[in-house]
């Protein structure tokens, strides 16, 4: 893998993107044995506002913990996409929600315009697992982490009793890209 791989998960507060970043980073750091650092940036809102969570993945030690040249960006809202896509590097991957993000940024990106929220709502049955659906898609596109290890990390973090729902959400997200 590349020396340093930067992932940014963006959307609005309450969409579970901080947790999504934590799960992805745990899958990488604890189960793949590769270095990962997770950070977040947030405003005063507990819900709403633009929110981002970042995961830096590297074979080497990670000094600067924030993303500057993003390899993979997830955006679940238009506001987040507009605000956070500026750091996406040329040739990078953009995963944008089909319903929420209608205007895609111009540039040389590999774009995956996916029905993440709709899949969560209609196929998984709960809109609040959109973050896990998104994780499934990310896992399908990342070389550094297997879907099995992401699932392990998901099950470690989600509330008891929601394991099947989350497992299904993850699989549905994975299917969107594979």
């Amino acid at each position: 893998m590349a020396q340093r791989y930067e992932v940014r998960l963006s959307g609005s507060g309450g969409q579970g993107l901080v947790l999504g970043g934590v799960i992805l980073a745990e899958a990488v750091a604890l189960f793949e044995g590769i270095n990962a650092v997770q950070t977040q940036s947030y405003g005063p809102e507990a819900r709403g506002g633009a929110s981002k969570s970042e995961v830096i993945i590297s074979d080497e030690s990670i000094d600067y913990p924030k993303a500057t040249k993003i390899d993979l960006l997830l955006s679940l809202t238009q506001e987040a996409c507009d605000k956070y896509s500026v750091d996406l590097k040329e040739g990078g991957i953009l995963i944008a929600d089909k319903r929420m993000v209608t205007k895609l940024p111009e540039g040389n990106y590999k774009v995956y315009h996916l029905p993440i929220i709709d899949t969560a709502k209609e196929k998984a049955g709960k809109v609040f697992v959109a973050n896990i659906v998104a994780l499934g898609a990310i896992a399908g596109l990342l070389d550094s982490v297997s879907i099995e290890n992401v699932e392990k990390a998901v099950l470690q973090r989600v509330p008891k009793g929601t394991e099947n729902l989350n497992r299904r959400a993850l699989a549905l997200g994975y299917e969107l890209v594979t």
Partner: protein
Amino acid sequence: MSGKEVFYQGNEACAEGALYAGCRFFGGYPITPSTEVAEFLSRRLPRVGGAFIQMEDEIAAMASIIGASLVGKKSLTATSGPGMSLKLENIGFACITEVPCVIVNVMRGGPSTGLPTGPGQSDVMQAKWGTHGDHPAIALAPASVQEIFNETVRAFNISERLRTPVILLTDEIIGHMREKITIPEKGELEIWDRPRPDCPPEEYLPYDTSKGIIPPMADFGSGYRWHVTGLNHDASGFPTNKPSLVQPEEERLMAKVTENLDIIEKYEHLTKDGAKVGIVAYGSSARSANAAIRLALEEGIPVDFIRPITLWPYPSQPTIEMAEKVDTIVVPEMNLGQMIDEVQRCIEGRAKVVGVNRVDGDPITPENILEKIREVA
């Protein structure tokens, strides 16, 4: 290091480190971005028979941990800038009464309420000079989640051994950042406890320094009835305003730090052949500095690096060595120039000193520092 691997946030690592060090009391008040320390300990302290209390304000939180420490419990509080300002009064009380305790300040931006969710490093001078009156100051500034764990343990150890408050200065970035860390097995890290008296209670003088500058401290309730006061006091602990007693006592408080630098001072000093530029950086800015130094080397510019892990007392000696070698020292910090004054003070003009300063709520990037390196190289 062997032990349990976990993926922890800096604030969680701090709380876990406190438990490892033997902390059994936490008094706090909710404040961003430190609240996770309190939340973690509200779950974990009762499991080990300890106590967590959310007090009515920051002042009370600080007071409560001093009270608990006097009973013999290792005690912690955690806060951020606005709360730190309120705690200072009682931190001074802990200094003069020599009650061990650890204060975590997860620094955020701005004076007053400032940037509650943004990072800052603007409380480093407050950590040294915030409290009124002369007093010793010890502040540790870890730069990674593992280091937060280890330095929290060390903060308790130093506080206990020297009977003085110790401040752990982290910031919003490393406080909220998550990394894999190893929680060492019990016994792997040394744990120190405060000196306690072994004389008969009737002979106990709480500030008797005839056997060393750190007098033994009795737990309230253990049979040694003593008087604790924030007034200047004599060896018996009772108030005095005798000049011949006050001055040596105040000097002794300072000497506890200056005579124990071997257990307090900690820094990294990395040198490269031919470096004409040096960097002094701490906390999360040190991570950016590390990245910048690597990038500079790729461009053929060698850069020396000092990372104080103990911020106060400041590691003067290595900084003087650096100043004698390089032409320019770059000091990146998330404030408008605080530790840069300390660097200038201790090198006494041996090199030029320039800052890289950001207070906009975004971290200093490696690129910010690299630009400055190129400029001065």
